[in-house]
């Protein structure tokens, strides 16, 4: 009995503390993710206040957080949007992939983490945070801007790339051989194609299986289906996250929109837990040795994302100011970088320092991203004025 009381108090304190941090974050105009991570670092092993007795709950809550993050990522774009996005932005999407994955992979190889570590770090530096980007664009009143569809189509492409990347990563993390790895790649490509076709042609049947006019029945069914699919996928060595993601893509239309609305608060709750758990499991003392690499990666991948946005926007005939805005909007990395690092670390197939590097990197980028999007216009104007001195009066 006494233990329950202490667990409740600890959990309550954690959630309340996260609530305060979240409010502070939005007040100062950044994403709460870095603050959650710092919260986790402070509580965890080697941190200020070690939390004990609630590890069982926080671990499973963190897992559910990953499932919900990926389910909602899948729900975010309809199959039709994914296909159009792929058709329209594949060139910019490929450039995005090459420019932003290479720095992460290069640093991992430099640190001697081997090809699997390189693949994981490539994913960490590649994927922008669609959550932060969409929120920042909305807050800054840029949804009506002409470069915004360009930014969103890059995010859509990254979403698709994740569908191929995650199964490959999990297969390699599980220690698959080259041949086995190739088979998994084939299987995952077939799986994503099948899911897209099913979603496009028979999406309403998948939706019908989970849909219900009663909100609570609907919530239970969607959540149940997501956890079932995630669990089965995990049993088949395809990673729970991938299963949830593919289920999200297969659910379509109004069902997807209603599911998003219902699941968002749950996702926020469990995802916050996931970030805390990730922070908890990262020893803050491991960060200083990799901090220099994190800073270097932050600088390089900020520039590469800006270049991506610049190129993609230029292709659509958007003027210079719009191009830099598009680039700066894409800078933020967040939840999915941590998800990838979490997959890699929990599989135990990569160097422990990867968690420290990913944490430090996301801390920097989740703060830098919204700030970059905000200051890009004044900075670009100032630079332009510098380059073109005012005519003598």
């Amino acid at each position, binding site marked *: 009995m006494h233990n329950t009381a202490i667990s409740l108090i600890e959990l309550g304190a954690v959630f309340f503390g996260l609530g305060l941090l979240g409010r502070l974050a939005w007040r100062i105009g950044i994403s709460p993710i870095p603050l959650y991570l710092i919260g986790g670092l402070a509580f965890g092993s080697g941190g200020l206040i070690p939390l004990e007795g609630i590890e069982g709950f926080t671990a499973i809550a963190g897992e559910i957080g990953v499932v919900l993050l990926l389910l909602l990522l899948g729900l975010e774009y309809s199959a039709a*949007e994914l296909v159009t996005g792929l058709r329209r932005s594949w060139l910019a999407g490929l450039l995005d992939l090459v420019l932003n994955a290479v720095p992460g992979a290069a640093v991992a190889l430099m640190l001697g983490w081997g090809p699997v570590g390189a693949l994981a770090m490539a994913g960490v530096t590649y994927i922008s945070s669609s959550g932060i980007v969409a929120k920042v664009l909305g807050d800054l009143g840029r949804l009506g801007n*002409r470069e915004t569809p360009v930014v969103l189509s890059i995010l859509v492409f990254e979403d698709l790339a994740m569908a191929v990347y995650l199964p490959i990563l999990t297969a390699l993390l599980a220690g698959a051989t080259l041949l086995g790895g190739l088979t998994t790649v084939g299987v995952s490509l077939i799986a994503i194609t099948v899911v897209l076709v099913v979603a496009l042609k028979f999406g309403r049947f998948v939706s019908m299986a989970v849909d219900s006019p009663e909100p609570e029945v609907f919530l239970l069914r969607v959540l149940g289906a997501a956890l079932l699919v995630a669990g089965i996928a995990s049993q088949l060595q395809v990673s729970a996250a991938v299963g949830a993601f593919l289920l999200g893509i297969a659910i379509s239309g109004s069902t997807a929109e209603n599911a998003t609305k219902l699941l968002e608060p749950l996702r926020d709750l469990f995802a916050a837990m996931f970030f805390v758990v990730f922070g908890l499991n990262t020893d803050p003392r491991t960060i200083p040795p990799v901090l220099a690499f994190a800073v270097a990666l932050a600088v390089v991948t900020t520039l590469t994302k800006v270049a991506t946005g610049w190129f993609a926007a230029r292709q659509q005939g958007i*003027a210079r100011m719009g191009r830099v805005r598009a680039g700066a909007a894409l800078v933020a990395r967040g939840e999915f970088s941590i998800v990838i690092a979490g997959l890699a670390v929990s599989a135990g197939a990569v160097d422990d320092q990867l968690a420290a590097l990913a944490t430090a990197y996301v801390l920097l980028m989740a703060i830098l991203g919204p700030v970059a999007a905000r200051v890009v216009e004044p900075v670009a104007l100032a630079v332009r004025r510098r380059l073109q001195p005012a005519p003598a009066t």
Partner: protein
Amino acid sequence: MVNVEVTPLPGIGTRQDFVSRSGRRIGVITHRDGHVDLIVSKQEDPDACVASIPLSAEESGALANLLGAPHLVAQLAEQHREVTGVTTRQLPLAPGSPYAGRTLGDTALRTRTAVSVVAVVRAGIVHPSPRPDFLLAGGDILVTVGTAEGLTAAVDVLERG
């Protein structure tokens, strides 16, 4: 002819806009949950927006009334141009009017002022040829046809009863 461009915004909704003759992009963003933003592009940077204003369903209805009714009146006036002495006007029914919440028949406009109500515009939707049992509401715009004196009298009737 205004060319309205429809752009999907994956994960957010759709943007519908057109370029005005003055070179401004004007339009709306319809979010997935149904709420609407009014957008107007910047003069010096047509890619960006000077404003992005969230509107409730009621507010966008009111805006549609303001913009839509004159268009309807202009069309009707054009049709009635040959008939001398007949004017088309839009008469607002103020929320405090004695006829807000009563039927069109109660106003007895035709009997008292010889003015015909050809349409009622509410929340951007035109209700053509309203019957006498049409229930009026504050904020409606009555599109009326009549003589100049009749229309002036109709304004009084709608305001004072």
